[in-house]
């Protein structure tokens, strides 16, 4: 094509390099642009109320001018932690079994299952949560523990999120464990280590950075998931006291109110500020994991 148009190979090369640089630059700038946009849109609220009180107060009554985000932040943190606690151990153990022990056909089937799970739209997970998880908790689990709950609670949100995070985490964990060189395992086994010892001391240690990356991907996914959580979590702007209490994560706050309240200036600004908080949490979280990964690589 280039020869046909009479452009020299050198020029083509230069143009394509420029395009590649532009593409990378664009992607690097993207978070910055999003962050700046959110800050600009939150300014009307930030001028109105001190940021410290907004982050530490849980009094949410926008029509009276009280904007407390603490309950929403805690809602997000708890539902994410819960989903992590529920899904991470299962994913890690399943990944070890599927890469080290299971017959080939089972691993292949699992890949298919993962693809299916990853492809299901999140609203379907939400509906499933309402139809199965919510009544299960309300009618069986909570009464068995001597508690009462509506079923629309933190635990429902955690369970639905955990299941949604599984395909992403499991897929990446399996790739990580498979990429550990066979020679290392052979060396370990030849030195007399048992199979399980080899997994513990060689495979998991060698794959540590990858494992952390996979788990943090699962957490990021859980932090940002909106519709499925919103449908089961109860959406009460109060700091939850137990896993059977309703919670209200930040993405749900934005999704519930954006369309209807965007014509009220301070409300609109408050929702943008909620988005900014979420953005900062994700930024902080990724910085911390990156720092750990860096430290591990150095050792």
């Amino acid at each position, binding site marked *: 094509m280039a020869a046909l148009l009479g452009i020299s190979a050198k020029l083509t090369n230069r143009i394509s390099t420029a395009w590649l640089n532009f593409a990378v630059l664009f992607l690097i700038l993207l978070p910055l642009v999003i962050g700046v946009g959110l800050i600009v849109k939150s300014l009307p609220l930030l001028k109105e109320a001190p940021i410290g009180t907004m982050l530490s107060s849980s009094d949410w009554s926008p029509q009276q001018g009280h904007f407390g985000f603490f309950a929403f932040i805690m809602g997000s943190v708890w539902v994410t932690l819960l989903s992590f606690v529920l899904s991470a151990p299962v994913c890690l153990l399943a990944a070890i079994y599927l890469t080290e022990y299971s017959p080939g056909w089972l691993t292949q089937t699992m890949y298919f299952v993962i693809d299916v799970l990853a492809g299901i739209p999140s609203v379907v997970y939400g509906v499933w949560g309402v139809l199965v998880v919510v009544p299960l908790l309300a009618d069986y689990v909570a009464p068995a523990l001597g508690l009462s709950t509506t079923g*629309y609670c933190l635990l429902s949100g955690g369970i639905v999120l955990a299941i949604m995070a599984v395909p992403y985490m499991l897929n990446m964990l399996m790739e990580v464990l498979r990429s550990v060189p066979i020679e290392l395992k052979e060396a370990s086994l030849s030195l007399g280590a048992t199979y399980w010892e080899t997994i513990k001391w060689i495979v998991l240690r060698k794959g540590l950075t990858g494992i952390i990356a996979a788990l943090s991907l699962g957490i990021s996914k859980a932090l940002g998931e909106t519709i499925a959580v919103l449908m089961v979590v109860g959406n009460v702007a109060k700091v939850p006291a137990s896993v059977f209490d309703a919670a209200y994560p930040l993405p749900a706050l934005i999704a519930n109110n954006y369309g209807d309240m965007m014509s009220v200036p301070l409300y609109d600004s408050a929702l943008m500020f909620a988005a900014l908080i979420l953005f900062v949490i994700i930024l902080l979280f990724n910085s911390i994991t990156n720092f750990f990964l860096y430290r591990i690589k150095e050792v």
Partner: protein
Amino acid sequence: MRTKSLLSLLLIGSFAAGLVSCGSNKGKNVTISGAFALYPLGVKWTEQYKTKTPDLRFDVSAGGAGKGLTDVLAGAADIAMFSRQLTPAEKEKGIWVFAVAKDAVLPTFSLNNPAAGLIRKKGLTKDQLKEIYLSGKNNITWGALLDTAYNSPVVVYTRSDAAGAADTWADYFGGKQENIKGTGIYGDPGLAEAVGKDANGVGFNNVAYVYDVTTGKKRPGIDVIPIDQNDNRQIDPGEDFYENADSILQAISDGRYPSPPARDLYFITKGKPTDPAIIGFLKWVLTDGQQYVKQAGYVPLTDEVIKAQLDKLN
């Protein structure tokens, strides 16, 4: 190379054709955006009106009341559909508000409630309802409310998404949506489902959702809490109009059902409408268009209200 030039020729050709077809169509486009609550009626009206004025084209979309108002203020839409009370900040923006139909929010309870018969017979007073929905107490028992032995506490469900229905129901007690303390469920159907499943659950729904508009019967699983308006702890014949869609729509229309929780639904324009096409449409909605209101499950406006709206247009 040849296929490529052929392809580009085709592309340019179709683009030009598109341009020409756009130019030749002198029809005007009217964009309507806003509340989900008014969307079905908005679609019905535009469909009917289009048959009379074939050169008008309508683009109706639902994205929430605030989205509609923002679109109208930004000039992205000609008319906004609005389903809640305007906030003071919104009122200051130089908009014109036209009531176009009425709707009502009804308190609901679960058919699984063991005290269902007693609820239908005695109803609940406004003060009791206020206590249940706004106080946030979770130890109000059915026994205390209805003077019976059934001592399970009432469980309140509300809408999680910003909704005109929740705002209107809270307005009955002088509050806003954020004052209703209860488990937040997404959407009208979700709320009805959650209330139906929980024997002690109470919630609220739009008339068009509580009753099936085609059959006029109540939806399965839920029933309406009758409001004991004269506080005599029984539902008198004058307070008993919840039998079917027709009876409740009639009661809302003649004011036997209080307002709020009955509410007006609005069309909003930026400034006084000047475009004859839009004025024509609004006038039609307020006159001939009112005949479609009832079959869509809403309540037609009274003659005085319609006259007041038409006066605004002249």
